[in-house]
């Protein structure tokens, strides 16, 4: 670990600690959102950016995580009240834990699903992989709608205790980023990048590419599950319709905008996409531009947002950061530190 890294880490922890005093309730809520999306995007980046497997499944894992956490946190009485279509399954009633085990269980369940999914999914590459993984998200949604004894069907679950707290989301986001960096700068991360650059060559040099892809997929699923759990306690209401392809699409925008495979890029991308779309909200309402009063144009913010996206993609083909990290760029600039373990 180098000195700069410890400075970044300390700053990040300090920011999380003092953020409730810096922002009002609205700001903290957006910050929570940003942190949750950072968890999701950083883990999605591991499989999509670092390992280069163009997969479109995170909404499925997020849904799994959200449902597991919700079911763990709802009390037995509340479950009897909520489940109107069918009586809850006995094991659903028996599930009752506090927040930390609930989040861990969300991650573990998502990982188990991912490992089983890996075998059929990684038989194909590239565009085909995208289609196959896209199907997974739909399967989860259909499953959620048609299993009322577990998920309460299309009504969904509500009255999930609002245990959200900036220290949880911020802390887990920092841990996620740390874990991802530790993976990327290890032999496993190198193998993942090798798979991205040339899968056949990686295999010809002794890398078990299927195993590496499954590791990346499983790790990414774990944090997507945990992020899903946090989303459930942020929103307090979840339903199958919440976890559509649009969620995956948002994450995809974040990592492509930031630069596939770059952690710094993911952080910038999350702040821009999630924070930016909140900040641009004023565009939807009536505006006063140099004395000219305009009407409200709902949806204008998405238009502007898309324009910004097009501009970034035109002028920075590989995203804002490309595959680089902030520390690499700074080091190149100041020409110091020859070769650290952590870039």
């Amino acid at each position, binding site marked *: 670990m180098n000195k700069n890294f410890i400075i970044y880490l300390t700053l990040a922890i300090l920011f999380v600690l003092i953020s409730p005093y810096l922002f009002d309730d609205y700001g903290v809520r957006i910050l929570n959102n940003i942190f949750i999306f950072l968890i999701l995007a950083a883990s999605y980046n591991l499989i999509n950016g670092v390992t280069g497997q163009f997969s479109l499944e995170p909404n499925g894992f997020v849904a799994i995580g959200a449902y597991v956490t919700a079911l763990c946190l709802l009390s037995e009485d509340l479950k009897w009240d909520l489940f109107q279509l069918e009586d809850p399954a006995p094991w659903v009633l028996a599930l009752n834990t506090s927040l930390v085990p609930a989040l861990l269980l969300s991650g573990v369940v998502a990982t188990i699903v991912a490992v089983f999914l890996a075998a059929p999914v990684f038989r194909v590459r590239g565009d085909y992989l995208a289609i196959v993984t896209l199907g997974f998200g739909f399967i989860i949604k259909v499953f959620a709608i048609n299993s009322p004894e577990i998920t309460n069907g299309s009504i969904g679950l509500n009255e999930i205790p609002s245990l959200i707290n900036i220290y949880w989301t911020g802390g887990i986001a920092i841990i996620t980023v740390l874990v991802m960096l530790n*993976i990327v700068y*290890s032999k*496993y991360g*190198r193998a993942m990048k090798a798979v991205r650059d*040339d899968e056949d060559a990686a*295999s010809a*040099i*002794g890398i078990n*590419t299927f195993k590496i892809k499954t590791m990346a997929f499983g790790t990414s699923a774990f944090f997507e599950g945990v992020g899903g759990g946090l989303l459930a306690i942020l929103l307090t209401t979840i339903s199958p319709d919440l976890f559509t392809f649009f969620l995956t699409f948002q994450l995809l925008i974040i990592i492509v905008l930031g630069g596939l495979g770059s952690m710094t890029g993911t952080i910038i991308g999350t702040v821009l996409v999630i924070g930016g779309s909140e900040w641009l909200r004023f565009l939807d309402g009536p505006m006063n531009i140099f004395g000219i009063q305009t009407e409200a144009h709902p949806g204008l913010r998405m238009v502007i947002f898309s324009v910004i996206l097009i501009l970034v993609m035109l002028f920075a083909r590989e995203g804002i950061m490309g*595959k680089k990290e902030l520390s690499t760029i700074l080091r190149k600039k100041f020409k110091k530190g020859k070769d650290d373990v952590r870039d």
Partner: protein
Amino acid sequence: MMLEIRNITKKFGGIVAINDTSFNINKNEIFGLIGPNGAGKTTMFNIITGNYKPTSGKVFLDGKDITNKKNYKIVREGIARTFQNIRLFSSMSVLDNILIGFDNSIKYTYLESIFRFPRYFSQEKKTKEKAYEIMEFLGIEKFANELASSLSYGNQRKVEIARAMATNPKILLLDEPAAGMNPNETKQLAHLLFDIRDKFDITILLIEHDMKFVNHLCDKVLVLDYGKTIFEGKIEDAIQDEEVIKAYLGDFKHA
């Protein structure tokens, strides 16, 4: 015997790419596989390294049957290769490319890397030192932190050889290592290959079209034509062999 190829046949649909070919390579030999384009040389490489399954026949490494093993497992057995068209990991540094080769000899688990156990640091340090040793041997240590794709063609070849050597092979398979090099670079490469054999105790099997290079380097050659062995032995004899001349230049009698 280091490598034994026994009655290998490979068919792609109706086309016979390799027809009942057998040969042996002894320890510390430099063995050349030559022949005109489309003779089945690269197919033979792909069979030895496990990228293709042969239609029939067997491959033995050090007396052990490796015929139906997956390619990444064959690397662990001790066969490493380079590609005809250089295939480096282009977005990674030269050092990282070579570290990939060491992947199987680095001993720490996934969780140990996530939680940064002491073993992570000691193993990474040790491996980096070994990588620098190989780079210094090949004279590419000054490019360690450069992007692999930014290097000149000759140096990229060296990185690929370094990456293959990092897997600690018993035998190194080089697919046209001198292609695209000028005579000077070719001469250097020949010296390097002798050094690799002598200092690292590595047997070498290579495909090459540059006959001067092959003549200078190889103890023994095998000439393939349309998947069939037409000559096996010393290169001096090969260039006088009627079958070999016919394969390369055509049959004058019927022309």
